[in-house]
């Protein structure tokens, strides 16, 4: 094994020789399709097993193979999990980007680079370089694996990248001080205990860790140390969480059409349903259908819900657009439907592998004419699980489409979380009359009658054997008895009831999470995956002397507490990842009397928000106000 050429750089470890422990980021710059995902996940899980708060974000292109991908691991002793702008440690594996990747390192940064790179050069002398023995190790490992029959000869190319990336796992483990048993545990986890791949990868890791110990003197200050911050926690993607939520929510029918970044939600649904939702004789208590497009998917959901299933779909922006007509239909006919929108960057095809919160306003209003919907806004993987099941309860209780607005960051990246809690409440199927009830009520029952004063009518399911149980569902005008009607009064009454139903939902949907600070003049408001950046920004702002309250919105329509929160603060910064200030717009529409208190921070470049950005924006505006004498 060649001896690595060491850097005798002018770079001294940043931090003036002092170790920087559990507080830095690593980025692995690779080529997509090359198989580095396993290596990255192994690192994350190992850190996690060491008890260190960690978060993994994959920045990948919208193609299958050969384009640049960056996987960033943030290690944060303080438990911050938002994206950071800077990254201290680079693992350079991609010739297409290496020059730029190096340029972006901070002074004192660290560059581990593959000895296979052709365009690599030591363009900066204020950083530390470590060369990785990729060529030799991966060749030898491949030869061994082929000899042992673990890998077919034809698959050499396919496996090369995967094994190559294990080289950086071993070296990083050694150089950062990652616990080798944690790595082993991570590999076991990754390969679900399958011995052969575990051993093959473990070998490389061990070998390269040993090699690094012998050959690479530590020049940089970055190190990890065990903590106790992850005990009992899990690490998971939001889409997996959402799928599990749906399964524990009693989903019985799902129809979907593939689209990034929503696909994995359906994949995981299929995977876990097959495990959890079959009878002993192998029969399914669910059906999952890959539809021919999104209109068909939502049509199937509507049909299934109408017939009594707990039905859902998952999609992203373009799919939401295509579902517009059906969503309006379901709203007006009062058919439940759970629709996951794992948001990506729009408009149009946009950036399919980048995040945004650009569908908020659109989902809320989807459909022509007067429509407004319940929209759930999970802010964590845990809430993806929770809303994954409560979405069905809400959809059936309110007999209406319910959106769950997740996003690419939440859905496809790796998040630490408390383990999910088993649903506390029984399944709520809402106001469904059985045959007995129908018989008892007789002609009193009207499908679209508001008997309870909450705007929500009672329905019957097809198959209910009672005289008068059947009714005709239509997207055209109907009266309280579901009979066709073009009368103005019938239309008005029905639309007013639908509006009332929406009002009822205000205090029924997940309430905002509010941290109101005594005497804080400034409030922050955000939702979804903007949360981690805001949480971190609040600490930074506090350090700058700006004490803030925080309302994290978890659903539309707004509850009263949203109004109260705005009223309780002089400025409320509304932070969101889109161009047009969609949440701020909705707030202005709803609270004209408070509209001037709202300050919009709307920004969307496809990357998750950073605390630095949020802090900067708030501070700048606060200073402006101060300057203006306020």
């Amino acid at each position: 094994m060649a001896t690595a050429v060491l850097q005798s750089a002018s770079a001294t470890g940043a931090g003036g020789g002092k170790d920087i422990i559990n507080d830095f980021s690593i980025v692995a710059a690779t080529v997509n399709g090359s198989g580095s995902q396993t290596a990255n996940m192994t690192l994350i899980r190992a850190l996690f097993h060491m008890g260190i708060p960690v978060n993994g974000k994959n920045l990948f292109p919208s193609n299958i193979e050969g384009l640049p991908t960056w996987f960033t691991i943030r290690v944060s002793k303080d438990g911050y999990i938002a994206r950071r702008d800077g990254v201290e440690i680079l693992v350079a594996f991609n010739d297409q980007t290496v020059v730029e990747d190096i340029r972006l390192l901070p002074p004192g940064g660290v560059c581990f680079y593959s000895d296979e790179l052709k365009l690599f050069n030591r363009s900066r002398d204020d950083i530390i370089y470590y060369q990785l023995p990729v060529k030799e190790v991966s060749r030898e490992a491949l030869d061994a694996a082929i000899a042992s029959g673990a890998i077919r000869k034809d698959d050499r190319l396919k496996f090369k990248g995967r094994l190559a990336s294990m080289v950086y796992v071993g070296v990083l483990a050694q150089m950062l001080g990652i616990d080798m048993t944690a790595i082993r545990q991570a590999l076991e986890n990754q390969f679900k205990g399958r011995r052969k791949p575990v051993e093959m990868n473990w070998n490389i890791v061990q070998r390269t860790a040993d090699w690094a110990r012998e050959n690479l003197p530590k020049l940089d200050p970055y190190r990890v140390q065990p903590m106790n911050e992850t005990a009992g926690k899990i690490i998971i993607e939001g889409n997996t969480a959402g799928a599990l939520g749906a399964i524990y929510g009693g989903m019985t029918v799902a129809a979907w059409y593939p689209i990034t970044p929503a696909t994995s939600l359906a994949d995981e649904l299929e995977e876990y349903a097959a495990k959890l939702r079959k009878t002993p004789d192998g029969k399914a208590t669910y059906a999952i259908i890959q539809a021919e497009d999104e209109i068909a998917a939502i049509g199937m959901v509507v049909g299934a819900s109408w017939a009594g299933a707990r039905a859902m779909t998952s999609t992203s922006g373009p799919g939401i657009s295509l579902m517009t007509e059906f969503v309006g239909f379901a709203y007006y006919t009062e058919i439940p439907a759970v629709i996951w929108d794992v948001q990506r960057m729009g408009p149009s095809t946009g950036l399919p592998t980048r995040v945004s919160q650009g569908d908020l306003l659109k989902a809320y209003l989807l459909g022509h004419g007067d429509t407004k919907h319940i929209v759930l806004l999970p802010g964590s993987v845990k809430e993806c699980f929770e809303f994954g099941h409560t979405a069905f309860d809400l959809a059936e209780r309110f007999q209406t489409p319910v959106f769950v607005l997740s996003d690419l960051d939440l859905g496809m990246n790796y998040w630490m979380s408390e383990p999910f809690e088993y649903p506390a409440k029984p399944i709520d199927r809402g106001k469904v009359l059985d045959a007995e009830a129908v018989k008892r009520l007789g002609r009193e029952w009207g499908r679209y009658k508001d008997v309870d004063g909450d705007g929500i009518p009672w329905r019957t399911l097809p198959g209910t054997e009672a005289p008068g149980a059947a009714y005709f569902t239509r997207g055209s005008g109907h009266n309280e008895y579901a009979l066709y009607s073009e009368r103005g009064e019938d239309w008005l009454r029905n639309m007013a009831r639908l509006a009332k139903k929406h009002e009822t939902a205000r205090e029924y949907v997940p309430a905002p999470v509010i941290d109101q600070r005594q005497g804080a003049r400034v409030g922050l408001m955000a939702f979804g995956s903007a949360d981690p950046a805001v949480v971190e920004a609040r600490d930074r702002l506090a350090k700058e002397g700006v004490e803030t309250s925080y309302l994290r919105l978890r659903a539309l329509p707004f509850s009263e507490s949203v109004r109260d929160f705005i009223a309780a603060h002089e400025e409320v910064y509304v932070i969101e990842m889109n161009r047009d200030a969609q949440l701020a717009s909705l707030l202005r529409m709803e609270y004209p009397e408070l509209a001037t208190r709202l300050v919009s921070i709307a920004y969307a470049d496809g990357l998750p928000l950073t605390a630095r950005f949020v802090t900067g924006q708030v501070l700048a505006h606060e200073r402006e106000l101060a300057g203006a004498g306020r």
Partner: protein
Amino acid sequence: MEATRPVNGKVNQLGLQKIEYDGSKTTLCAGCGHNSISQRIIDAAYELSLPQHKVIKLSGIGCSSKSPAYFMGRAHGINALHGRMPTVATGATVANHDLLAIGVSGDGDTGSIGFSPYKHMLRRNVPMVYIIENNGVYGLTKGQFSATSDEGQKTRYYGTQRFPSLDMCMEAIVAGAGFVARSFSGDAKQVRELLKAAMAYKGTAVLDIISPCVTFNDEPDSNKSFAYGKANEYPLHEIGVVLPFEEIQVDYEPGTVQQVKLHDGPTIQLRKLEAGYDATSKMGALARLDQAREKGEFITGLLYIDESRPTLPELENLVETPLAWLTEKDTRPSRESLDQIMREFM
């Protein structure tokens, strides 16, 4: 189902009179072909003694799609979006595989906006009766051509059709349908028997029924007109459905009758009028349809039948209880299972 009540007049095996299969009063034009088809659905449902709470009626948008309101008023119904009924039916039949789904669509609803839904429903073999009330025009929007109107066809307000038609039967066969029939709303007996066969068939049963629009496409020179149909209908066979409890007549010459036994009982009897037509030959059916199209013939009958393909709910391998009726016990996995999964993510 209602308790048995005093009966005056003929009743079926459920003790119901035919009138009890009625729906609300039609609002279609007097003489519209669609109204006859509604009547035939009533006939067939009555004769098969269908329990209406086990039936769902589905449609898209159009005059034709209004008709489910006009038959079987005791069955749940849904008037879906224009062209999208097949998708709704797909969801509904999977949610409750115990129900008999009867879909009514138009040629515009199926052949234009709903064409992809139609084909993919067939591909999935969604268990349902799928009726196309085919009048070659968009009735409800006042007479525009649909994709089933033939090249050269004229109508009063929209001139001459410039494009060749799409043949809903050929399309069905090519997409893998196992029950494909063409008929004419004026042929009451054939429509009724075909409907009975379709209702007994387990997968998607397509009935493309020429159903004249008396308001916008009933000029005698239109091959979707009543006069044309009456004059030119060419049935390939005489169809009869023999219910399980009925006796099959056997007084026929060998080769003149084709019999197809359906999976849950009834037998379809085709007394051949066109010698040599074999309703179980896919390519034969396609070729005959193509020939009819070339020659301008109006052939009717059960064009193709094959009951071997599994239906969508069968493929989904569902539990016996309809998904719609499953309870929390069936659909929410245990607390332990979640703990187990959580451990896997630790």
